[in-house]
């Protein structure tokens, strides 16, 4: 089967994800302040913020993974396509025109 540009792009993204997590595990994402006796320039501060945000995203993502694993959501569970997943939902008798989940989230914001 011929791979499309989108397929290739997704494969590269998957590799990049794994690389980011490996980097985090190896401690590559360190919170090391720039050593400088002068005040940091805006560009340097921006770079620091971006590095910190990237590191925090990896850390938070790993924490979420841990929480999900504790709930039994592991990579051992077969990965379904969206269509298969939605079919499961329909087979269980849910109304495809309801909007319980979205409205449930919106309602939660009021709690």
């Amino acid at each position, binding site marked *: 089967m011929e791979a499309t540009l*989108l397929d290739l*792009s*997704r494969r590269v*993204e998957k590799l*990049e*994800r794994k690389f*980011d*997590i490996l980097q985090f595990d190896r401690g590559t994402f360190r919170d090391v302040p720039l050593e400088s006796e002068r005040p940091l320039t805006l560009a340097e501060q921006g770079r620091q913020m971006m590095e910190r*945000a*990237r590191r925090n*995203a*990896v850390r*938070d*993502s790993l924490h*979420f*993974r841990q*929480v*999900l694993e504790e*709930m*039994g*959501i592991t*990579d051992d*569970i*077969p*990965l*379904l396509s*969206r269509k298969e*997943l*939605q079919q*499961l*939902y*329909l087979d*269980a008798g*849910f*109304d*495809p*025109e*309801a*909007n*319980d*989940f*979205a*409205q*449930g*989230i*919106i309602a*939660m*914001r009021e709690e």
Partner: protein
Amino acid sequence: MRIFYFDSSALAKGDIKEKGSVIVERILENTAEQQWRVLMIGLLETISIFVRKKNNKVISQTIFQSALRTFKNDFLDNLKVFKVEATNDLILVSADQRLLTAAKAERLQVINPETATLAEIEQLLQADSPAQSHAE
């Protein structure tokens, strides 16, 4: 490159079948993962609603696990989704009317999956230049 920022009220529609799911699904299936963005709080909200539905026995354990497994694969394992840059051509995808109103006031493009049509989404996805109209 267009970036789709998914509010959790839209995000959940990607993994279940409810009003507007077809719109979210069309966007997710016709864009690269590097075009998706979410906030950590959005992930939390989405996980929370699935946990609530499971605890209230609205969904089965099988649906709960399968939905969150897909969700994890699409978003949690994808670190790029958390990175929003100032130069991004951002489109908010949300079913929360308050967010949509606020975003429009800031001149952001918005998509409400509960009211957008497939034709509007197709047009948006096919357009080369940033769309000027709202699909809402």
